């Protein structure tokens, strides 16, 4: 009898041990009702393909997600896998919170954006989705301003002229949607002009801050002219509202505007085109969503398996279709018909190849604030562009 009990106990224990699953936690930002079910579906597919791994999903919001992640990592309770904005990677990496991310060459060559997660020659996160901004225009307003139905501005001179012409159509119509001060947004609107005028934030050897160069000042003067003379000034959402109501000729925006047009079933003659340049083409701003693994996680292998699954070309296409996203990190994914058959998505894909990303620096979030303040002073305060940028350069140099 004793033997039977012992055998049964051993069998039960063994089966328990065999069925013990590894649970990995994943914190992510996709909570929109149109996309959350797709995220859950992908997670479920992963669990079916890997019966020994279970994924615990936690939603974050853009309003306070960064703070939550920082607090979690600081208290040693960070998730195994976390979605990070490209600007945040260096600040977590420098403090030893992220595990180095190693991929084989085949995967590496298919994915774009590794440079944004490379800090001190080590890669700390895998690019999931990238994002850039393009120039959107209202075709009806361009036609009314005397342009034919193929026109899109390619140089800054053409762009300025078109903005002025649209702005002069009526008192209730504005040439350009200009951002009001809004954290993490205003500087992203200035930097495309900054880069397109030939300016750079730091010198190539990273020793000097070049924020107040002639190129940078000219870019801010140009941006300020559009803002002062023809600007519809509001927060990003307000600008997009006005644009979709036909009150604004040009706005710089991301792929979420396409999603909005689709979701709200707006009948709108939309032009999407590359950011103009002093010499065509100009440069836009590039960022992205990355997946990183917690350095103190004891389930790194399962975590990496999950990251690879999420970022597979097929799953990126699935996600992009649901979210109307334009820029998967996988080159293979961009070959899908969903992208190739849509001219607006093609604009984004082309623009991404003509986009710059901010320096990968743990202090970038602080520099970003300083740059944003300079733009704010020049556009809304008493500051002249040259003075505002000079002050910003001094502050950044003092911190380095």
């Amino acid at each position, binding site marked *: 009898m004793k033997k039977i009990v012992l055998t049964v106990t051993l069998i039960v224990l063994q089966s328990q041990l065999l069925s013990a699953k590894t649970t990995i936690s994943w914190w992510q930002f996709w909570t929109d009702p149109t996309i959350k079910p797709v995220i859950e579906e992908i997670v479920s597919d992963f669990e079916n393909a890997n019966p020994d791994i279970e994924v615990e999903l936690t939603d974050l919001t853009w309003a306070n997600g960064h703070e939550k992640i920082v607090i979690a990592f600081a208290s040693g309770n960070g998730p195994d896998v976390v979605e990070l904005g490209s600007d945040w990677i260096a600040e977590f990496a420098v403090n030893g919170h992220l595990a180095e991310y190693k991929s084989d060459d085949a995967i590496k060559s298919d994915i774009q954006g590794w440079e944004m997660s490379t800090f001190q020659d080590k890669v700390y996160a895998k690019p999931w989705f990238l994002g850039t901004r393009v120039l959107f225009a209202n075709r009806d307003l361009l036609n009314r301003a005397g342009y034919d139905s193929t026109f899109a501005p390619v140089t800054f001179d053409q762009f300025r002229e078109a903005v002025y012409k649209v702005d002069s159509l009526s008192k209730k119509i504005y040439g350009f949607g200009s951002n009001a001060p809004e954290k993490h947004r205003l500087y992203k609107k200035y930097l495309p002009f900054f880069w397109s005028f030939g300016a750079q934030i730091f010198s190539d050897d990273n020793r000097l801050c070049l924020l107040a160069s002639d190129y940078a000042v000219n870019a801010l003067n140009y941006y300020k002219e559009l803002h002062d003379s023809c600007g519809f000034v509001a927060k990003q959402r307000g600008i997009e509202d006005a644009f979709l109501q036909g009150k604004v000729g040009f706005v710089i925006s991301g792929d979420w505007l396409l999603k909005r047009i689709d979701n709200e079933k707006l009948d709108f003659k939309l032009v999407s085109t590359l950011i103009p340049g002093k010499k065509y083409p100009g440069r836009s701003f590039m960022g992205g969503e990355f997946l990183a693994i917690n350095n103190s996680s004891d389930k790194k292998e399962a975590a990496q398996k999950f990251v690879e699954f999420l970022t597979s070309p097929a799953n990126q296409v699935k996600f992009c279709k649901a979210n109307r996203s334009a820029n998967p990190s996988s080159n293979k994914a961009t070959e899908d018909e969903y992208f190739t058959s849509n001219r607006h998505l093609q604009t984004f894909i082309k623009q991404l190849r003509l986009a710059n990303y901010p320096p990968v620096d743990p202090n970038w979030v602080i520099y970003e604030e300083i740059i944003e303040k300079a733009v704010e002073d020049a556009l809304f*305060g008493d500051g002249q562009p040259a003075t505002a940028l000079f002050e910003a350069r001094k502050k950044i140099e003092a911190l380095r």
Partner: protein
Amino acid sequence: MKQKKTTALFLALPWIVTLLLFWLYPIIYSFVVGFTNKRLLSKTYEWVGFDNYKTLLTDEAFLVALKNTAIFVIGTIPFTTIIALLLALLVNKQFKGRGLFRAGFFLPSITSMVVIALIFTNLFQRGGYIALLAEMLGFTVPQHGFLLDSSTALFSIMAMDVWMAVGYYMLIFLAGLKAIPQELYESAKIEGAGVVRQFFSITLPMLKPVALFILVINSIKSFQVFVEIFVMTQGKFETSTMVYFIYEAGLTTKFNFGYASAAAYILFVIVALFSFVQFKLLKQRGEAW
């Protein structure tokens, strides 16, 4: 007796534990952290003595926040208190639709601050109703609206705050008015005292404890102004206040806990001193009354 004490202690235990864990510990911890250079993400930190306090006193952003908080407190409390008192006197009278007015004045106080702030953000912007009204009345409206201009942003938020807060303090004044014995007014009338004399000799002195309460809680609330700033301007256009500064230093970009804790303790000392002075002044004034 001993058993009774043990039972009492046992019953109070949940409260005591909560107090120690969630109130006392963070208060002491943040005080200690104020003397370190602790940043949230960094795994190491050092004792820096009074460095955070010294830096704060020369930090332009902190001094601007301090100045704005002072403007906010001094600029809103008298208006809020006086308007609340006048409204309380008004709705204390018998007239048709009195209940509706009371409810109407009180309604903003029970509405979410975030909702109010979002509505006023639209009202204050160029083309918003307040901006249009101001234009009709001949005032100059800033090019991009009231909240996107340093000369008007803080005052606009203060005006909204007064509008929002008066209903709540009106209700407290109203409760105070109801508690004043009617015999005092009847005697005063017999003695020939007019309405003004009755107000200054009976109403105001009798409302002294209520006024003190309102002044103290209104001051503390005004010193801690945050949500309005966060929603409407994010501290831009010269609207950053002390609590917003603490939030920015400790919980956003820099996650500089040590610095933010030191700033929080400076705010604590200011609020404590301000409340103490208010108590003293009103006590003296009360004795004079």
